[in-house]
Protein backbone atom coordinates (compact mmCIF):
# COMPACT_ATOMS: atom_id res chain seq x y z
CA UNK A 1 0.00 0.00 0.00
CA UNK A 2 1.36 3.38 -0.93
CA UNK A 3 1.82 5.84 1.94
CA UNK A 4 -0.74 8.08 0.36
CA UNK A 5 -3.39 5.39 0.25
CA UNK A 6 -2.48 4.30 3.77
CA UNK A 7 -2.97 7.80 5.05
CA UNK A 8 -6.29 8.04 3.31
CA UNK A 9 -7.46 4.73 4.72
CA UNK A 10 -6.38 5.68 8.22
CA UNK A 11 -8.20 8.99 7.93
CA UNK A 12 -11.35 7.18 6.86
CA UNK A 13 -11.01 4.72 9.69
CA UNK A 14 -10.54 7.51 12.20
CA UNK A 15 -13.53 9.33 10.82
CA UNK A 16 -15.83 6.35 11.17
CA UNK A 17 -14.47 5.69 14.67
CA UNK A 18 -15.44 9.23 15.63
CA UNK A 19 -18.92 8.78 14.15
CA UNK A 20 -19.21 5.52 16.12
CA UNK A 21 -18.18 7.17 19.37
CA UNK A 22 -20.62 9.98 18.71
CA UNK A 23 -23.49 7.58 18.11
CA UNK A 24 -22.73 5.54 21.21
CA UNK A 25 -22.50 8.72 23.26
CA UNK A 26 -25.82 10.01 21.94
CA UNK A 27 -27.84 6.83 21.93
CA UNK A 28 -26.37 4.61 24.64
CA UNK A 29 -28.09 6.12 27.71
CA UNK A 30 -31.50 5.72 26.13
CA UNK A 31 -30.60 2.23 24.96
CA UNK A 32 -29.44 1.39 28.45
CA UNK A 33 -32.73 2.61 29.88
CA UNK A 34 -34.51 0.19 27.56
CA UNK A 35 -32.19 -2.64 28.59
CA UNK A 36 -32.85 -1.94 32.25
CA UNK A 37 -36.59 -1.62 31.79
CA UNK A 38 -36.72 -5.11 30.25
CA UNK A 39 -35.05 -6.81 33.20
CA UNK A 40 -36.88 -8.52 36.00
CA UNK A 41 -36.05 -6.95 39.36
CA UNK A 42 -33.94 -9.97 40.27
CA UNK A 43 -31.49 -9.30 37.43
CA UNK A 44 -31.46 -5.56 37.89
CA UNK A 45 -28.22 -5.32 39.78
CA UNK A 46 -26.12 -7.26 37.34
CA UNK A 47 -24.69 -4.94 34.75
CA UNK A 48 -25.39 -6.15 31.23
CA UNK A 49 -25.08 -4.49 27.85
CA UNK A 50 -27.59 -6.58 25.94
CA UNK A 51 -31.20 -7.55 26.21
CA UNK A 52 -31.14 -11.28 26.97
CA UNK A 53 -34.62 -12.32 28.00
CA UNK A 54 -36.99 -9.41 27.63
CA UNK A 55 -39.22 -9.27 30.64
CA UNK A 56 -42.17 -6.91 30.47
CA UNK A 57 -43.16 -7.03 34.11
CA UNK A 58 -41.93 -3.47 34.70
CA UNK A 59 -44.11 -2.17 31.89
CA UNK A 60 -47.07 -4.11 33.17
CA UNK A 61 -46.49 -2.63 36.63
CA UNK A 62 -46.23 0.93 35.33
CA UNK A 63 -49.28 0.62 33.11
CA UNK A 64 -51.24 -0.81 35.98
CA UNK A 65 -50.68 2.29 38.04
CA UNK A 66 -53.73 4.45 37.52
CA UNK A 67 -51.83 7.56 38.59
CA UNK A 68 -49.20 7.07 35.88
CA UNK A 69 -51.81 6.68 33.15
CA UNK A 70 -53.54 9.71 34.56
CA UNK A 71 -50.29 11.64 34.39
CA UNK A 72 -49.82 10.71 30.74
CA UNK A 73 -53.36 11.87 30.05
CA UNK A 74 -52.75 15.15 31.89
CA UNK A 75 -49.50 15.73 30.04
CA UNK A 76 -51.23 15.13 26.71
CA UNK A 77 -54.11 17.47 27.50
CA UNK A 78 -51.81 20.18 28.80
CA UNK A 79 -49.34 19.95 25.92
CA UNK A 80 -52.05 19.89 23.23
CA UNK A 81 -53.94 22.80 24.77
CA UNK A 82 -50.75 24.83 25.15
CA UNK A 83 -49.84 24.17 21.52
CA UNK A 84 -53.29 25.19 20.30
CA UNK A 85 -53.40 28.30 22.43
CA UNK A 86 -49.86 29.35 21.61
CA UNK A 87 -50.29 28.75 17.88
CA UNK A 88 -53.54 30.68 17.73
CA UNK A 89 -52.22 33.65 19.68
CA UNK A 90 -48.92 33.70 17.86
CA UNK A 91 -50.42 33.30 14.40
CA UNK A 92 -52.29 36.58 14.54
CA UNK A 93 -49.38 38.23 16.33
CA UNK A 94 -46.92 36.94 13.75
CA UNK A 95 -49.07 38.36 10.95
CA UNK A 96 -48.98 41.76 12.58
CA UNK A 97 -45.25 41.57 13.31
CA UNK A 98 -44.17 39.90 10.10
CA UNK A 99 -46.30 41.67 7.51
CA UNK A 100 -47.37 45.09 8.74
CA UNK A 101 -45.02 48.00 9.27
CA UNK A 102 -46.11 50.07 12.22
CA UNK A 103 -44.62 52.16 14.96
CA UNK A 104 -44.04 49.96 18.00
CA UNK A 105 -43.19 46.82 16.05
CA UNK A 106 -39.56 46.83 17.19
CA UNK A 107 -40.35 47.27 20.89
CA UNK A 108 -42.96 44.50 20.77
CA UNK A 109 -40.46 42.11 19.19
CA UNK A 110 -37.85 43.07 21.78
CA UNK A 111 -40.35 42.45 24.55
CA UNK A 112 -41.23 39.02 23.19
CA UNK A 113 -37.54 38.16 23.00
CA UNK A 114 -37.08 39.47 26.52
CA UNK A 115 -39.85 37.28 27.93
CA UNK A 116 -38.26 34.22 26.33
CA UNK A 117 -35.16 34.90 28.41
CA UNK A 118 -37.03 35.13 31.75
CA UNK A 119 -35.88 32.72 34.41
CA UNK A 120 -39.06 30.81 35.25
CA UNK A 121 -38.43 31.07 38.94
CA UNK A 122 -38.59 34.87 38.72
CA UNK A 123 -42.31 34.77 38.02
CA UNK A 124 -43.04 31.82 40.27
CA UNK A 125 -44.46 33.68 43.24
CA UNK A 126 -46.39 36.22 41.16
CA UNK A 127 -47.78 33.52 38.92
CA UNK A 128 -48.70 31.45 41.94
CA UNK A 129 -50.79 34.33 43.18
CA UNK A 130 -52.46 34.85 39.79
CA UNK A 131 -53.29 31.16 39.53
CA UNK A 132 -54.75 31.06 42.99
CA UNK A 133 -56.74 34.21 42.36
CA UNK A 134 -58.22 32.65 39.24
CA UNK A 135 -59.02 29.50 41.18
CA UNK A 136 -56.83 27.36 38.94
CA UNK A 137 -54.45 25.95 41.55
CA UNK A 138 -53.96 22.19 41.18
CA UNK A 139 -55.71 22.06 37.79
CA UNK A 140 -54.41 21.48 34.28
CA UNK A 141 -55.51 25.03 33.41
CA UNK A 142 -52.87 26.39 35.74
CA UNK A 143 -50.23 24.64 33.66
CA UNK A 144 -51.80 25.53 30.30
CA UNK A 145 -51.84 29.18 31.26
CA UNK A 146 -48.38 29.29 32.80
CA UNK A 147 -46.73 27.35 29.97
CA UNK A 148 -47.56 30.15 27.53
CA UNK A 149 -44.77 32.15 29.18
CA UNK A 150 -42.14 30.04 27.47
CA UNK A 151 -44.04 28.66 24.45
CA UNK A 152 -45.61 31.90 23.25
CA UNK A 153 -42.44 33.98 22.79
CA UNK A 154 -40.88 31.11 20.93
CA UNK A 155 -43.83 30.45 18.60
CA UNK A 156 -44.30 34.16 17.93
CA UNK A 157 -40.65 34.54 17.09
CA UNK A 158 -40.42 31.55 14.77
CA UNK A 159 -43.75 32.20 13.03
CA UNK A 160 -42.83 35.84 12.49
CA UNK A 161 -39.69 34.66 10.74
CA UNK A 162 -41.65 32.26 8.54
CA UNK A 163 -44.40 34.80 7.92
CA UNK A 164 -41.86 37.37 6.78
CA UNK A 165 -40.56 34.94 4.17
CA UNK A 166 -43.89 34.63 2.32
CA UNK A 167 -43.95 36.70 -0.87
CA UNK A 168 -45.15 40.25 -0.50
CA UNK A 169 -47.19 40.27 -3.70
CA UNK A 170 -49.39 37.41 -2.53
CA UNK A 171 -50.83 39.56 0.20
CA UNK A 172 -51.23 42.49 -2.17
CA UNK A 173 -53.10 40.27 -4.59
CA UNK A 174 -55.45 39.39 -1.72
CA UNK A 175 -55.89 43.07 -0.92
CA UNK A 176 -56.74 43.75 -4.55
CA UNK A 177 -59.29 40.94 -4.34
CA UNK A 178 -60.86 42.80 -1.45
CA UNK A 179 -59.64 40.61 1.42
CA UNK A 180 -59.56 42.03 4.95
CA UNK A 181 -56.46 41.32 7.07
CA UNK A 182 -58.32 38.48 8.81
CA UNK A 183 -59.33 36.88 5.50
CA UNK A 184 -55.82 37.37 4.14
CA UNK A 185 -54.39 35.63 7.17
CA UNK A 186 -56.81 32.72 7.34
CA UNK A 187 -57.50 32.00 3.68
CA UNK A 188 -54.34 33.05 1.88
CA UNK A 189 -51.37 32.92 4.28
CA UNK A 190 -52.45 30.20 6.70
CA UNK A 191 -52.68 27.44 4.06
CA UNK A 192 -49.09 28.26 3.10
CA UNK A 193 -47.89 28.26 6.68
CA UNK A 194 -48.86 24.68 7.52
CA UNK A 195 -45.32 23.35 7.46
CA UNK A 196 -44.18 26.14 9.76
CA UNK A 197 -47.13 25.53 12.07
CA UNK A 198 -46.31 21.83 12.29
CA UNK A 199 -42.70 22.65 13.15
CA UNK A 200 -43.42 25.27 15.78
CA UNK A 201 -46.30 23.24 17.19
CA UNK A 202 -44.04 20.25 17.57
CA UNK A 203 -41.35 22.24 19.34
CA UNK A 204 -43.92 23.83 21.64
CA UNK A 205 -45.36 20.38 22.34
CA UNK A 206 -41.98 18.99 23.34
CA UNK A 207 -41.28 21.98 25.58
CA UNK A 208 -44.66 21.66 27.31
CA UNK A 209 -44.35 17.88 27.65
CA UNK A 210 -40.97 18.24 29.33
CA UNK A 211 -41.70 21.13 31.69
CA UNK A 212 -41.02 20.43 35.35
CA UNK A 213 -40.79 23.47 37.63
CA UNK A 214 -44.31 24.86 37.12
CA UNK A 215 -45.83 21.40 37.08
CA UNK A 216 -44.15 20.61 40.38
CA UNK A 217 -45.26 23.87 41.96
CA UNK A 218 -48.77 24.42 40.62
CA UNK A 219 -50.14 20.91 41.06
CA UNK A 220 -50.52 19.09 44.31
CA UNK A 221 -52.37 15.81 43.91
CA UNK A 222 -51.51 12.70 41.93
CA UNK A 223 -54.60 13.13 39.80
CA UNK A 224 -53.33 16.47 38.41
CA UNK A 225 -49.65 15.63 37.96
CA UNK A 226 -47.92 15.56 34.61
CA UNK A 227 -45.48 12.90 33.51
CA UNK A 228 -42.17 14.59 34.46
CA UNK A 229 -43.42 15.21 37.99
CA UNK A 230 -44.84 11.71 38.28
CA UNK A 231 -41.51 10.22 37.24
CA UNK A 232 -39.52 12.49 39.53
CA UNK A 233 -41.73 11.45 42.43
CA UNK A 234 -41.58 7.69 41.87
CA UNK A 235 -39.87 6.40 44.96
CA UNK A 236 -39.21 3.23 46.81
CA UNK A 237 -38.93 2.47 50.49
CA UNK A 238 -35.92 4.72 50.94
CA UNK A 239 -33.84 7.01 48.72
CA UNK A 240 -31.45 4.12 48.14
CA UNK A 241 -34.09 1.66 47.08
CA UNK A 242 -35.56 3.32 44.03
CA UNK A 243 -37.50 0.89 41.81
CA UNK A 244 -35.10 1.39 38.92
CA UNK A 245 -36.74 -1.09 36.56
CA UNK A 246 -40.09 0.56 37.01
CA UNK A 247 -38.56 4.00 36.66
CA UNK A 248 -36.80 3.09 33.42
CA UNK A 249 -39.95 1.54 32.01
CA UNK A 250 -41.86 4.74 32.74
CA UNK A 251 -39.05 6.82 31.26
CA UNK A 252 -39.03 4.79 28.08
CA UNK A 253 -42.79 4.99 27.79
CA UNK A 254 -42.88 8.79 27.92
CA UNK A 255 -39.83 9.23 25.73
CA UNK A 256 -40.50 6.83 22.88
CA UNK A 257 -43.30 8.94 21.37
CA UNK A 258 -41.02 11.98 21.44
CA UNK A 259 -38.11 10.11 19.91
CA UNK A 260 -40.34 8.84 17.12
CA UNK A 261 -41.67 12.35 16.49
CA UNK A 262 -38.16 13.73 16.42
CA UNK A 263 -36.91 11.08 14.03
CA UNK A 264 -39.84 11.68 11.67
CA UNK A 265 -39.79 15.45 11.77
CA UNK A 266 -36.04 15.82 12.13
CA UNK A 267 -35.65 18.15 9.17
CA UNK A 268 -38.54 20.39 10.21
CA UNK A 269 -37.32 20.58 13.79
CA UNK A 270 -33.89 21.66 12.66
CA UNK A 271 -35.37 24.39 10.47
CA UNK A 272 -37.58 25.57 13.32
CA UNK A 273 -34.77 25.66 15.87
CA UNK A 274 -32.42 27.50 13.57
CA UNK A 275 -35.14 29.92 12.42
CA UNK A 276 -35.75 30.75 16.05
CA UNK A 277 -32.14 31.26 16.90
CA UNK A 278 -30.00 32.23 13.95
CA UNK A 279 -32.27 34.46 11.98
CA UNK A 280 -33.35 36.21 15.16
Amino acid at each position, binding site marked *: MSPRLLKKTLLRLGFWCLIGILLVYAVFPFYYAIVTSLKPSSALFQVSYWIDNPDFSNYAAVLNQASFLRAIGNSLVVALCVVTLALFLSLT*AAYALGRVKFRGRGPVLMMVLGVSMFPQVAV*LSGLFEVIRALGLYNTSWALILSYTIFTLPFTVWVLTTFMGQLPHELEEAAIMDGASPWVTLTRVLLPLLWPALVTTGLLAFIAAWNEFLFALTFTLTDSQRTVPVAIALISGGSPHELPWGLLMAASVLVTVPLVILVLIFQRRIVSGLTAGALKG
Partner: protein
Amino acid sequence: MSVSTTLAPDDEYLLTRETPVQRRRVRAAWLFLTPMLLCLALVAAWPLLRTFWFSLTDASLADTGDASFVGLSNYLFHSGAGWSGILVDPQWWNAVRNTLHFTVVSVGLEIVLGLLVALLLNVKFTGRALVRALILIPWAIPTIVSAKIWSWMLNDQFGIINHMMLSLGLIDAPLAWTADADLSMWAVIIVDVWKTVPFVTLLMLAALQMLPSDCYEAARVDGIHPVKVFWRVTLPLLMPALLVAAIFRILDSLRVFDVIYVLTSNSSSTMSMSVYARQHLVEFQDVGYGSAASTLLFLVVAVIAMAYLYLGRRQLEVRS
Protein backbone atom coordinates in the same frame (compact mmCIF):
# COMPACT_ATOMS: atom_id res chain seq x y z
CA MET B 1 -31.50 63.54 -8.78
CA SER B 2 -34.89 64.55 -7.56
CA VAL B 3 -35.53 61.08 -6.15
CA SER B 4 -33.20 61.59 -3.27
CA THR B 5 -33.70 65.28 -2.61
CA THR B 6 -34.33 66.04 1.01
CA LEU B 7 -37.43 67.80 2.20
CA ALA B 8 -37.99 71.47 2.42
CA PRO B 9 -39.47 72.40 5.82
CA ASP B 10 -42.91 73.04 4.39
CA ASP B 11 -42.98 69.55 2.93
CA GLU B 12 -42.88 67.91 6.37
CA TYR B 13 -46.61 67.35 6.48
CA LEU B 14 -46.27 64.89 3.63
CA LEU B 15 -44.36 62.50 5.86
CA THR B 16 -46.92 62.15 8.57
CA ARG B 17 -50.00 61.97 6.42
CA GLU B 18 -51.41 58.48 6.53
CA THR B 19 -54.37 57.40 4.52
CA PRO B 20 -57.31 55.59 6.12
CA VAL B 21 -56.17 52.50 4.22
CA GLN B 22 -52.90 52.45 6.14
CA ARG B 23 -54.56 53.37 9.38
CA ARG B 24 -56.98 50.47 9.06
CA ARG B 25 -54.09 48.13 8.48
CA VAL B 26 -52.17 49.35 11.50
CA ARG B 27 -55.31 49.13 13.61
CA ALA B 28 -55.82 45.53 12.46
CA ALA B 29 -52.20 44.80 13.39
CA TRP B 30 -52.69 46.01 16.94
CA LEU B 31 -55.94 44.11 17.17
CA PHE B 32 -54.10 40.98 16.10
CA LEU B 33 -51.40 41.59 18.69
CA THR B 34 -53.76 42.23 21.57
CA PRO B 35 -54.52 38.61 22.59
CA MET B 36 -50.83 37.74 22.68
CA LEU B 37 -49.94 40.91 24.58
CA LEU B 38 -52.72 40.34 27.11
CA CYS B 39 -51.60 36.77 27.63
CA LEU B 40 -47.99 37.77 28.17
CA ALA B 41 -49.07 40.56 30.50
CA LEU B 42 -51.01 38.04 32.57
CA VAL B 43 -48.36 35.33 32.76
CA ALA B 44 -45.16 37.35 32.52
CA ALA B 45 -45.32 41.08 33.17
CA TRP B 46 -47.75 41.15 36.07
CA PRO B 47 -46.27 38.14 37.92
CA LEU B 48 -42.82 39.62 37.51
CA LEU B 49 -43.95 42.90 39.05
CA ARG B 50 -45.62 41.00 41.87
CA THR B 51 -42.39 39.09 42.48
CA PHE B 52 -40.53 42.40 42.74
CA TRP B 53 -43.14 43.62 45.19
CA PHE B 54 -43.14 40.42 47.25
CA SER B 55 -39.39 40.69 47.64
CA LEU B 56 -40.04 43.87 49.62
CA THR B 57 -42.58 42.22 51.92
CA ASP B 58 -42.77 39.42 54.46
CA ALA B 59 -45.40 37.51 52.43
CA SER B 60 -45.83 33.82 53.07
CA LEU B 61 -47.11 31.21 50.66
CA ALA B 62 -50.15 30.41 52.76
CA ASP B 63 -51.64 33.83 52.12
CA THR B 64 -49.77 36.17 49.82
CA GLY B 65 -52.42 38.86 50.26
CA ASP B 66 -51.59 39.28 53.92
CA ALA B 67 -48.15 40.81 53.62
CA SER B 68 -46.60 43.90 55.03
CA PHE B 69 -43.90 46.05 53.54
CA VAL B 70 -40.50 45.43 55.01
CA GLY B 71 -38.33 47.45 52.66
CA LEU B 72 -35.09 45.87 51.64
CA SER B 73 -34.72 43.71 54.73
CA ASN B 74 -35.10 40.50 52.72
CA TYR B 75 -31.94 41.51 50.91
CA LEU B 76 -29.98 43.05 53.74
CA PHE B 77 -31.00 43.91 57.26
CA HIS B 78 -29.10 45.16 60.28
CA SER B 79 -30.41 44.20 63.66
CA GLY B 80 -28.80 44.25 67.05
CA ALA B 81 -27.40 40.77 66.44
CA GLY B 82 -25.66 41.78 63.19
CA TRP B 83 -26.43 41.62 59.49
CA SER B 84 -29.02 39.31 58.00
CA GLY B 85 -30.72 38.87 54.61
CA ILE B 86 -29.84 37.15 51.36
CA LEU B 87 -26.79 39.20 50.65
CA VAL B 88 -25.08 37.86 53.76
CA ASP B 89 -26.49 34.33 53.51
CA PRO B 90 -23.60 31.95 52.83
CA GLN B 91 -26.12 29.51 51.29
CA TRP B 92 -27.06 32.10 48.68
CA TRP B 93 -23.46 32.85 47.79
CA ASN B 94 -22.85 29.14 47.60
CA ALA B 95 -25.77 28.90 45.16
CA VAL B 96 -24.34 31.76 43.12
CA ARG B 97 -20.94 30.09 43.03
CA ASN B 98 -22.49 26.75 42.04
CA THR B 99 -24.55 28.36 39.28
CA LEU B 100 -21.55 30.19 37.86
CA HIS B 101 -19.39 27.10 38.09
CA PHE B 102 -22.06 25.06 36.35
CA THR B 103 -22.63 27.72 33.67
CA VAL B 104 -18.99 28.29 32.80
CA VAL B 105 -18.04 24.62 32.64
CA SER B 106 -21.12 23.24 30.95
CA VAL B 107 -21.51 26.02 28.39
CA GLY B 108 -17.80 25.84 27.61
CA LEU B 109 -17.97 22.09 27.09
CA GLU B 110 -21.17 22.32 25.07
CA ILE B 111 -19.77 24.92 22.71
CA VAL B 112 -16.53 23.01 22.14
CA LEU B 113 -18.22 19.62 21.77
CA GLY B 114 -21.06 21.07 19.71
CA LEU B 115 -18.60 22.67 17.33
CA LEU B 116 -16.55 19.48 17.01
CA VAL B 117 -19.61 17.35 16.33
CA ALA B 118 -20.89 19.91 13.84
CA LEU B 119 -17.57 19.85 12.00
CA LEU B 120 -17.74 16.07 11.94
CA LEU B 121 -21.27 16.07 10.58
CA ASN B 122 -20.47 18.77 8.05
CA VAL B 123 -18.50 16.13 6.12
CA LYS B 124 -20.68 14.47 3.50
CA PHE B 125 -21.03 10.73 4.08
CA THR B 126 -23.67 8.09 3.53
CA GLY B 127 -26.07 7.91 6.44
CA ARG B 128 -25.44 11.45 7.54
CA ALA B 129 -29.14 12.25 7.75
CA LEU B 130 -29.67 9.25 10.02
CA VAL B 131 -26.78 10.18 12.29
CA ARG B 132 -28.09 13.73 12.47
CA ALA B 133 -31.50 12.44 13.49
CA LEU B 134 -30.07 10.05 16.08
CA ILE B 135 -27.99 12.65 17.84
CA LEU B 136 -31.22 14.60 18.38
CA ILE B 137 -32.44 11.89 20.75
CA PRO B 138 -30.80 13.32 23.89
CA TRP B 139 -32.38 16.69 23.11
CA ALA B 140 -35.87 15.17 22.82
CA ILE B 141 -35.72 13.25 26.08
CA PRO B 142 -37.36 15.21 28.90
CA THR B 143 -34.79 16.63 31.32
CA ILE B 144 -36.36 14.75 34.19
CA VAL B 145 -36.10 11.47 32.33
CA SER B 146 -32.51 12.03 31.30
CA ALA B 147 -31.64 12.96 34.87
CA LYS B 148 -33.22 9.71 36.06
CA ILE B 149 -31.51 7.62 33.39
CA TRP B 150 -28.16 9.14 34.24
CA SER B 151 -28.64 8.81 37.94
CA TRP B 152 -29.22 5.11 37.30
CA MET B 153 -26.14 4.91 35.11
CA LEU B 154 -24.13 6.86 37.70
CA ASN B 155 -25.49 4.79 40.58
CA ASP B 156 -22.67 4.18 43.05
CA GLN B 157 -23.27 0.45 43.51
CA PHE B 158 -24.88 -0.83 40.34
CA GLY B 159 -24.24 1.97 37.85
CA ILE B 160 -22.85 1.03 34.49
CA ILE B 161 -20.45 3.98 34.42
CA ASN B 162 -18.66 2.75 37.51
CA HIS B 163 -18.72 -0.75 36.04
CA MET B 164 -17.12 0.45 32.83
CA MET B 165 -14.49 2.48 34.59
CA LEU B 166 -13.65 -0.36 36.93
CA SER B 167 -13.27 -2.85 34.13
CA LEU B 168 -11.12 -0.39 32.17
CA GLY B 169 -9.00 0.04 35.29
CA LEU B 170 -9.61 3.77 35.49
CA ILE B 171 -10.72 3.61 39.09
CA ASP B 172 -10.17 1.17 41.93
CA ALA B 173 -13.42 1.59 43.78
CA PRO B 174 -16.90 2.69 42.67
CA LEU B 175 -17.52 6.43 42.82
CA ALA B 176 -20.55 7.95 44.49
CA TRP B 177 -21.24 10.33 41.64
CA THR B 178 -24.38 12.00 42.88
CA ALA B 179 -23.73 11.87 46.59
CA ASP B 180 -20.06 12.83 46.78
CA ALA B 181 -19.82 16.58 47.16
CA ASP B 182 -16.75 16.72 44.92
CA LEU B 183 -18.33 14.73 42.13
CA SER B 184 -21.98 15.72 42.15
CA MET B 185 -21.42 18.95 40.24
CA TRP B 186 -19.63 16.96 37.58
CA ALA B 187 -22.55 14.56 37.43
CA VAL B 188 -24.90 17.48 36.83
CA ILE B 189 -22.60 18.89 34.16
CA ILE B 190 -22.28 15.52 32.41
CA VAL B 191 -26.06 15.19 32.16
CA ASP B 192 -26.59 18.75 31.01
CA VAL B 193 -23.84 18.57 28.40
CA TRP B 194 -25.22 15.29 27.09
CA LYS B 195 -28.67 16.79 26.70
CA THR B 196 -27.71 20.11 25.11
CA VAL B 197 -24.85 19.31 22.78
CA PRO B 198 -27.34 18.35 20.03
CA PHE B 199 -28.92 21.80 20.15
CA VAL B 200 -25.57 23.55 19.86
CA THR B 201 -24.54 21.12 17.14
CA LEU B 202 -27.62 21.94 15.09
CA LEU B 203 -27.01 25.66 15.34
CA MET B 204 -23.37 25.24 14.39
CA LEU B 205 -24.23 22.92 11.55
CA ALA B 206 -26.75 25.37 10.13
CA ALA B 207 -24.18 28.14 10.41
CA LEU B 208 -21.49 25.98 8.79
CA GLN B 209 -23.74 25.28 5.86
CA MET B 210 -24.33 28.97 5.33
CA LEU B 211 -20.62 29.69 5.00
CA PRO B 212 -19.52 30.74 1.51
CA SER B 213 -17.90 27.78 -0.19
CA ASP B 214 -15.65 29.92 -2.41
CA CYS B 215 -13.49 30.82 0.59
CA TYR B 216 -12.71 27.14 1.03
CA GLU B 217 -12.09 26.53 -2.61
CA ALA B 218 -9.72 29.48 -2.66
CA ALA B 219 -7.95 28.13 0.43
CA ARG B 220 -7.67 24.68 -1.13
CA VAL B 221 -6.28 26.07 -4.35
CA ASP B 222 -3.71 27.96 -2.34
CA GLY B 223 -2.80 24.71 -0.56
CA ILE B 224 -3.40 25.99 2.96
CA HIS B 225 -3.39 23.35 5.68
CA PRO B 226 -6.94 22.43 6.83
CA VAL B 227 -6.16 23.19 10.47
CA LYS B 228 -5.00 26.64 9.51
CA VAL B 229 -8.12 27.09 7.39
CA PHE B 230 -10.22 26.26 10.43
CA TRP B 231 -8.55 28.84 12.66
CA ARG B 232 -8.25 31.53 10.00
CA VAL B 233 -11.46 31.10 7.98
CA THR B 234 -14.06 28.87 9.60
CA LEU B 235 -13.85 30.04 13.19
CA PRO B 236 -14.01 33.79 12.50
CA LEU B 237 -16.96 33.27 10.15
CA LEU B 238 -18.70 31.09 12.73
CA MET B 239 -18.18 33.60 15.53
CA PRO B 240 -21.62 35.26 15.31
CA ALA B 241 -23.47 31.91 15.41
CA LEU B 242 -21.17 30.74 18.18
CA LEU B 243 -22.00 33.82 20.23
CA VAL B 244 -25.73 33.35 19.69
CA ALA B 245 -25.50 29.73 20.82
CA ALA B 246 -23.37 30.69 23.82
CA ILE B 247 -25.79 33.39 24.94
CA PHE B 248 -28.79 31.07 24.61
CA ARG B 249 -26.98 28.45 26.62
CA ILE B 250 -25.69 30.87 29.24
CA LEU B 251 -29.17 32.27 29.87
CA ASP B 252 -30.51 28.72 30.09
CA SER B 253 -27.77 27.55 32.42
CA LEU B 254 -28.15 30.46 34.82
CA ARG B 255 -31.73 29.42 35.52
CA VAL B 256 -30.95 25.69 35.75
CA PHE B 257 -33.36 23.80 37.96
CA ASP B 258 -34.70 20.43 36.74
CA VAL B 259 -31.45 18.47 36.41
CA ILE B 260 -30.14 19.52 39.76
CA TYR B 261 -33.43 19.04 41.54
CA VAL B 262 -33.80 15.48 40.29
CA LEU B 263 -30.19 14.36 40.22
CA THR B 264 -28.95 15.67 43.54
CA SER B 265 -32.11 17.19 45.10
CA ASN B 266 -31.24 19.78 47.73
CA SER B 267 -27.61 18.93 48.23
CA SER B 268 -25.81 22.15 48.98
CA SER B 269 -22.85 21.24 46.80
CA THR B 270 -24.94 21.62 43.64
CA MET B 271 -27.72 23.96 44.69
CA SER B 272 -28.31 26.60 42.01
CA MET B 273 -29.90 30.01 42.35
CA SER B 274 -33.22 28.69 41.00
CA VAL B 275 -33.20 25.75 43.41
CA TYR B 276 -32.36 28.10 46.27
CA ALA B 277 -35.17 30.50 45.35
CA ARG B 278 -37.73 27.74 44.97
CA GLN B 279 -36.71 26.14 48.22
CA HIS B 280 -37.44 29.35 50.11
CA LEU B 281 -40.59 30.07 48.12
CA VAL B 282 -42.28 26.69 48.28
CA GLU B 283 -40.65 24.50 50.87
CA PHE B 284 -40.03 27.18 53.50
CA GLN B 285 -43.15 29.08 52.35
CA ASP B 286 -41.21 32.31 52.68
CA VAL B 287 -42.41 34.18 49.59
CA GLY B 288 -40.76 37.43 50.56
CA TYR B 289 -37.30 35.93 50.91
CA GLY B 290 -37.69 33.59 47.94
CA SER B 291 -38.91 36.47 45.77
CA ALA B 292 -35.88 38.47 46.73
CA ALA B 293 -33.68 35.62 45.53
CA SER B 294 -35.73 35.35 42.32
CA THR B 295 -35.39 39.07 41.77
CA LEU B 296 -31.62 38.88 42.10
CA LEU B 297 -31.52 36.00 39.61
CA PHE B 298 -33.72 37.99 37.25
CA LEU B 299 -31.41 40.97 37.48
CA VAL B 300 -28.37 38.86 36.66
CA VAL B 301 -30.11 37.35 33.64
CA ALA B 302 -31.47 40.73 32.55
CA VAL B 303 -28.04 42.36 32.66
CA ILE B 304 -26.54 39.60 30.53
CA ALA B 305 -29.46 39.62 28.10
CA MET B 306 -29.27 43.37 27.74
CA ALA B 307 -25.54 43.26 27.18
CA TYR B 308 -26.20 40.72 24.45
CA LEU B 309 -28.91 42.80 22.78
CA TYR B 310 -26.70 45.87 22.99
CA LEU B 311 -23.72 44.05 21.49
CA GLY B 312 -25.97 42.48 18.86
CA ARG B 313 -27.23 45.88 17.80
CA ARG B 314 -23.72 47.31 17.77
CA GLN B 315 -22.61 44.45 15.57
CA LEU B 316 -25.51 45.11 13.20
CA GLU B 317 -24.53 48.75 12.96
CA VAL B 318 -20.94 47.85 12.24
CA ARG B 319 -22.07 45.45 9.53
CA SER B 320 -24.32 47.98 7.84
